[in-house]
């Protein structure tokens, strides 16, 4: 299980591509992907296009990322969730807290 990360060409986006299962087992890797990033005004894109399952600890991880982003005046975009995953995000009303596209 991995997370692949890349900075966009213009250096304004950090894209984090998540695996099929987004759960507690990704905890450390997910954190490692952003903790050392201290760029101001960065957009963190959590790409969920590959993700089929997400649990509540994944929601918790996203919230930690949000805290981190806010610290450096950045923002979060949740990108391309599947219908199942979108449903989980909606139950938690995450669209009220961040952008989901």
């Amino acid at each position, binding site marked *: 299980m991995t997370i692949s990360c890349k900075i966009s060409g213009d250096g304004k986006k950090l894209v984090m591509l998540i695996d099929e299962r987004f759960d507690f087992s990704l905890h450390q890797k997910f954190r490692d992907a952003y903790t050392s990033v201290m760029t101001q005004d960065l957009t963190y894109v959590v790409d969920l296009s590959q993700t089929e399952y997400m649990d*509540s*600890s994944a*929601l918790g991880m996203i*919230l930690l990322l949000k*805290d981190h982003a806010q610290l450096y005046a950045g923002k979060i975009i949740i990108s391309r969730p599947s219908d199942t995953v979108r449903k989980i995000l909606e*139950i938690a009303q995450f669209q*009220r*807290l961040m952008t989901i596209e």
Partner: protein
Amino acid sequence: MSQSQKIALVVDDSRMQCKLLSVLLEEENYRVVVANNGESGVKMYIKYQPDLVLMDINMPIMNGFEATRRIKKLSGVGNLAPIIFITSMDSEQAFIQSVDAGGDSILVRPFTPNVFKAKIKSMQRISDLVEQVKGLQQEQQNDAELAEKMMSNVIEARNFALDKIGIIKKPATIFSGDIQLSALCPNGELHVLLGDFTGHGLRSSIGAIPVTETFRAMTKKGFSILEIIAQINKQMYTLLPGDLFFAASFASISEHEKSAYIFNAGLPDGYLFNNDAKIMQQFASTHPPLGILPQLLPDAQLEVIQVKNNDRIVFITDGIVEARNPLGEFFGFLRFEKAAIEGIAKKDLTNNVLKYLDEFCQQCEQEDDISLVNIPCSGWKKIKVTNKVSIPKGFSEEENYFGIPQGALPTWSYHLHLTGKLLKTVNPIPLVMNQINDLEGAGEHWQSLYTILTELFINALDHGVLELNSSLKDSAEGFSQYFNERSKRLDKLVGNVINTPDDFVRISLKYFPLSHGGKMVINIKDSGQGFEVLKVIKDNSIAINDGLKLSGRGVELVNKLCDTLEYQEKGTLVTASYIWHI
């Protein structure tokens, strides 16, 4: 780890070998026991429970492989009794066989005493590690059990009406923090909470105690469900680490108003079922789980619904819909709804859902707590309306049975004048009830007073200050329209720091102790235009007798509870007196 002398078991049919190994082991501070064949080796193992076993392979009666298999079976999973084979068969075959039989290591003769001692030390190190892991596992298990015990025995055992509310509660192998609470409000309304903390084990139960305390204490003091939710959110925000939160659904059910208030923050849809097992309404999550935001979102709102007798409200956590069968499929909403609908027809929703779940999941290990609450909307404690005290037979009006002092002054009085925006943000009833409790102590008789104050205050605010027409509440559509309009008008109330705003409600209490109890005189004045109270009461009593009307029961109820009830100044001032008898 025990500091006492370790025991080694030597199993070998050569007495010479036994002697040799015993000497070396004793030098390493072991107490040595000896067996001369596999069978007696197994017996000795059972008797002495050694820390280390040295096993020969070829022996009469039972060989070393068989003895090892039996010992490993006896010692069970996760329990390491390290077994070292000692052999002169230096073959690949012997090595593989000894590992297959369950041996932990093999030592081929000839070897020097130092090699032997080194081998033993390394085995002991591994077995010490296993012991340590076992200890840690046990500790974790204890923690999880403590958390679970705390939830079920300490917290949930104190719930109200456990016999009436249907509950499913199946904790996962690792306890994961679902919580079910119910409590009764002073005015007879019922508050219910079903919540799900993120995380597993003890970590997920950090919030349970504060949530419980807040829920119970605030309900008892008469705070509204939204105020309680806001407070729990604030508490969880301060208390829980960033990635932990509390998804929860709340219901406040008023039997006498035939209504319920629902709030779902992060749980799957809740349901309203009618008596014919039809899904009347679903309550989707409208707010992020509690503990994420420092305050509730400004548009956080309760859903107000009308309920009928025998309707039931059902909340579930995601453990139900995400329960899996051996094929890895989810139980899902459709199966849940089917089980629930069928269950209502069988008059046992809770157990039918449970039955379906068990059949679906078979013996699959459960990944998350499975919880459900099934709350009937009727059959709750009726507010006592008969406790208006009457003068017993044989006393005449003139005898002043209650000893009401003519023209006497009250022993204390209390005034609360709320203006403008405060009418939206402050619920004065808990404040007032707190004062009364502080001054006169707690007592059963305050329940009716609570109801009187609540109804009169709401009337003054809704019909007086906000000029809402209660006839709106007569139809189902009007019912929600009424509450929408109400919150819109509340938002318009202004806070003005320089001039006192025009809108106000003033509550005054005067207390007179009596020889057999006490008397409270309540005055509530509002800034509205007034309304034709008599007409409302008259209409209501006719309508209630006909069983027609949904709204306006407040005044009728208060009239029954009070000794006197009088509206003056076009309905903008109400004076009620309440007498209780000890």
